[in-house]
């Protein structure tokens, strides 16, 4: 392309030299740039601060009152452009939800969820296969499966409902890490739920099951995680979220510390319900993981609502 001749290569008019060190005004403006989305700020903040500094320098050179006018104009510019950039960011993401193309990391997290979910429900078919330390590995992998799905779907969900998405992801990640840590610490404890320390263990277990239900409920409410998937994958993912909503609370009933399964009248029923809940939760995470790992080639089934 026709690049300008030497004197005009970088623009012909402004007489600019090396930018001076940041003054107080520039530092304040740099702080105000927090109003912009993180990615935008990361890319353009330096240039914006430089430009603001140049404007101030011009204003000071002209007259003192120009500085105030520059500040007022810049603040108005900041508010309007920051709001616009936030709205645009959400709209761009909402538009990209029209297709579901999981990244390699999303597929990897999905695969982890499949393994974790299958290991949890594996004992229903191969009793005694997992015992001692192996069982801890199984439970840790299962606990991390929910966190994996939560992280994999977070960006899609947060594009539609940032706060709800954050609650869902934070719940499964914190619960997954807490339960994993509790299980590793209780590796050699025959009855980890008993005693004073057992309360922490049992609460971590409760949080794991209930966070799964919370995640499923929020995913159904936001209705964004599976947007753009083929019809079958969408149906499977929705069903998996519903399974988590049902399975989580049922599984929580079976915690040994509360003794509900020992109840003389309803103990057997509660025990069966809890086992069903454990199975459903494992299946729910495994199905969502499978959708993440295998989805994306079916084409857009659902339309963007946003």
């Amino acid at each position, binding site marked *: *392309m*026709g*690049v*300008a001749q030497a004197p*005009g*290569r*970088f*623009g*012909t*008019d*402004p007489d*600019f*030299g*090396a*930018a001076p060190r940041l003054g107080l005004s520039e530092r304040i403006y740099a702080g105000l740039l927090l109003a*912009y989305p993180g990615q*935008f700020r990361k*890319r*353009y903040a*330096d*240039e*914006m*601060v*430089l*430009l*603001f500094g*140049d*404007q101030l320098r011009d204003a000071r050179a002209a007259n003192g009152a120009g500085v105030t006018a520059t500040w007022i*104009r*810049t603040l*108005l*510019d*900041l508010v*309007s*452009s*920051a709001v*616009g*950039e936030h709205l*645009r960011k959400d709209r761009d993401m909402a538009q990209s939800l029209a297709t579901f193309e999981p990244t390699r990391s999303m597929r990897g997290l999905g695969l982890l969820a499949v393994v974790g979910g299958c290991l949890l429900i594996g004992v229903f078919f191969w009793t005694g296969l997992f015992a001692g330390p192996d069982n801890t590995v199984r439970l840790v992998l299962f606990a991390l499966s929910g966190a994996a799905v939560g992280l994999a779907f977070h960006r899609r969900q947060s594009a539609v409902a940032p706060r709800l998405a954050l609650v869902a992801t934070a719940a499964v990640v914190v619960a997954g890490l807490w339960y994993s840590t509790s299980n590793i610490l209780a590796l050699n404890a025959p009855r980890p739920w008993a005693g004073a320390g057992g309360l922490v263990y049992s609460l971590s277990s409760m949080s794991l099951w209930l966070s799964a239900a919370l995640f499923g409920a929020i995913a159904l409410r936001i209705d964004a995680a599976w947007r753009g998937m083929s019809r079958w994958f969408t149906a499977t993912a929705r069903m998996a979220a519903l399974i988590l909503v049902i399975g989580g609370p049922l599984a929580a009933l079976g915690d040994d510390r509360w003794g509900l399964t020992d109840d003389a009248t309803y103990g057997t029923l509660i025990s069966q319900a809890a086992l069903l809940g454990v199975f459903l939760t494992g299946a729910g995470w495994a199905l969502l993981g499978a959708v993440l790992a295998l989805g994306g080639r079916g084409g857009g089934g659902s339309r963007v609502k946003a």
Partner: protein
Amino acid sequence: MTATTKQPDQTPPLSRVAVYILLAIGPEERHGYAIMHEVRRITGGAVKLGPGAIYTTIKRLLADGLIEESDERPDSDLDDQRRRYYRLTALGRSVAAAEVRRLDAMVASARPWALTPDPFRALLDRSRA
């Protein structure tokens, strides 16, 4: 569709600020400060863009493939090396040319009546005639 295969009429409608910036960059390579000055010059001082308006628009123009960032950095003795320079792409030139043609046609159609002493009377006379 990639930027290189787009045609000028396939690009999304440009905002007024985007048009100012495209025209301000023109055939040169310019950074934000130079763009701001050039916009002020070509609009006769009527438009004073702030850093937010300039860089949010630059971001969109980059994404649409209408401008690109120059790989070269200025000599540190002459300028701050953090400055980035932008230039029009071939598509950007085509879009700018299309925009100039559109503005030119608009001005040409308005010139006969808008520059007369009483434009509304002239318009009324034309409609009666």
